């Protein structure tokens, strides 16, 4: 099995290297502390490209295929680099106040303990025994791995559950199988835990220049140690992956609204594209996010908001998948509901009892402490508290949460599955994207509100005073 572990490590290093090249092209000065962001950027980009390769009958999930993709991305990045001059992104200076420093150290300590515990939880686990893992997601990955593509014949990709689900996760898992030299599914819980830890590192890398550490680390520790996050770190189900991508996409979108640096639009589009190609919820929640961000951008910035339209590429990227499905005569929509039923008021009133059942259960999954600890009440109270200083952003986040929540609830309302089973089986997983994204945005929103209120110095000024000398020296060395 040693070769499988080494192969998995080689895959992760390759993915992170591709991400670093993308970050370099976007003007980042490559640093070890950006490893999480680099991994996620590379993973999302390679996964999206491999998915598209599969749609046109090119299997880029093999080791040579992945390396060719990596070289192609590198070449594109050399071109992209012209448009994104190198810019220092130093981390915010440490807090001078001893108490605040203590809070940030305590938060960082809890975050590390949570992630290390998750590693020890996952390292000796067997293959994930959850139904959807071995009945839906992993057989598709194995089918790509063994049959080199989206085969529709006996045992092929489309012969398993939910054949209309897009191929991002099966494609990246097939990539990791090729690097491991076999379909070693028992290593995937460990890989998922590493991905979860790298996600936390990616959030820190994106926010560290803008958010005070005494806010960032405690809130991130709360998200990671919340039972419904921590217990899913090792699962191979892609619900948490969707949430990772949407959270990173949302952070990038808010940072673009604040700083107008287009590198955030590129990263946000990459993350939201990966979300759209992962699962239906990734498309729908990502599309709502893009719509809300565009409204805020155009209200605040009028014509200067036009570049934000590039975010709309992400949900649109699902269309080639729909074309592939129809070309191969695969039902393009889930069979147990159709969105058009939302406009059939007779149907809605007949099925209202389902909504009445699902709603309190879903709220329970969010607000009962056994799922997300104190996170959801904290988010709600914080949105109210910052609304005066940060009206548009607070309203946008609240709107996304409400639309996302009721959009997910509507599926239980109009669906035909037994609602008692369906809610119990899936609602806690799909609804988890909402607190995860809101919890990721919470320290950023609070920090921005503090800047507006004058309770904290703007991050840019702080870093110019403290750290730019070191960053410029690094830039000079790089050139």
């Amino acid at each position, binding site marked *: 099995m040693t070769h499988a572990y080494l192969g998995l490590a080689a895959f992760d290093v390759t993915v992170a290297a591709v991400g670093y090249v993308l970050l370099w092209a976007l003007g980042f000065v490559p640093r070890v502390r950006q490893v999480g962001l680099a991994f996620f950027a590379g993973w999302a980009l390679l996964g999206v490209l491999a998915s598209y390769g599969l749609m046109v009958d090119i299997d880029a999930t093999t080791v040579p295929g992945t390396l060719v993709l990596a070289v192609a991305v590198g070449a594109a990045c050399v071109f992209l680099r012209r448009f994104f001059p190198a810019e220092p992104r130093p981390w915010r200076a440490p807090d001078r106040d001893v108490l605040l420093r203590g*809070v940030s150290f*305590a*938060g960082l300590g*809890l975050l590390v*303990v*949570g992630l290390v*515990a*998750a*590693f*020890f*939880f*996952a*390292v*000796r686990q*067997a*293959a*994930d*025994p959850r*139904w959807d*893992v*071995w*009945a839906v997601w*992993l*057989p598709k990955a*194995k*089918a790509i791995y*063994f*049959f080199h593509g989206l085969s529709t*014949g*006996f*045992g*092929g990709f489309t012969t*398993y*559950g939910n054949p209309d689900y897009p191929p991002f996760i099966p494609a990246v898992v097939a990539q990791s199988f090729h690097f491991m030299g076999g379909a*070693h*599914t*028992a290593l995937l819980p460990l890989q998922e835990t590493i991905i979860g830890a790298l996600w936390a590192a990616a959030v820190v890398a994106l926010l560290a220049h803008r958010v005070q550490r*005494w*806010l960032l680390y*405690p*809130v991130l*520790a*709360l998200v*990671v*140690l*919340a*039972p419904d996050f*921590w217990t899913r770190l090792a699962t191979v189900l892609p619900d948490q992956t969707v949430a990772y991508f949407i959270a990173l996409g949302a952070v990038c979108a808010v940072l673009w609204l604040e700083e107008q640096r287009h590198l955030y639009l590129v990263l946000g589009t990459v993350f939201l594209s990966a979300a759209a190609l992962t699962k239906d919820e990734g498309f729908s929640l990502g599309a709502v996010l893009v719509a809300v961000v565009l409204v805020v951008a155009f209200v605040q910035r009028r014509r200067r908001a036009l570049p934000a339209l590039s975010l709309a590429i992400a949900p649109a990227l699902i269309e080639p998948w729909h074309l592939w499905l129809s070309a191969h005569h695969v039902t393009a929509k889930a069979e147990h509901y159709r969105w058009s039923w939302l406009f059939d008021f007779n149907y809605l009133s007949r099925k209202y009892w389902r909504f009445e059942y699902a709603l309190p259960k879903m709220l329970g999954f969010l607000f009962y402490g056994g799922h997300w*600890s*104190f996170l959801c009440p*904290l988010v709600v109270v*914080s949105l109210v*508290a910052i609304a005066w*200083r940060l009206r548009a952003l607070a309203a946008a986040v609240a709107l996304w949460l409400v639309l996302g929540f009721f959009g997910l609830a509507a599926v239980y309302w109009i669906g035909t599955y037994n609602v008692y089973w369906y809610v119990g089986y899936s609602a806690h997983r799909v609804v988890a994207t909402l607190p995860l994204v809101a919890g990721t945005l*919470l320290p950023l929103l*609070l920090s921005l509100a*503090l800047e507006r*209120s004058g*309770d*904290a110095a703007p991050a840019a000024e702080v870093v110019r005073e403290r750290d730019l000398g070191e960053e410029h020296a690094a830039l000079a060395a790089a050139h």
Partner: protein
Amino acid sequence: MRFSLGGFAAGVAVIALIGAAAEVPTAVRAAHAAFTARGESWNSGEYGPSVAWETTEEVQNAIKTLPPNAVYTIVLGNQPPLSSFEQTGILPLFRYFLLPRRYTPRLRDAQWVITYHHSSETVGVPYKKEIPLGPDGNTFKVTR
């Protein structure tokens, strides 16, 4: 009293710390239990899903018996009766483990047949030799 956003943010950080710290014992206990566990479900490697369904023996023997390029089907019977849980799960479980062998739902296309709680004699296709996979299943190669 004037509302202080800085004070509010500090309160959020402290509540987050308390909430996170409260979850640490559960996480550490779960990690310790998983890392030191010796039970079958923890050490079953690739066979984790089949352990829960008590089909590991049948699955392992099917992997050894059917060639990797085989086209096969599975015939589920009711002798002894299968629970609805098993009726739903046995087929996708075998399909998952038997890849790259290709499953077909059509008996006429199959080169191999796996019978589960079903007598091979009553499947209705010719074969020479039945190979036992375990207490719940057998397999045979179709002779045409």
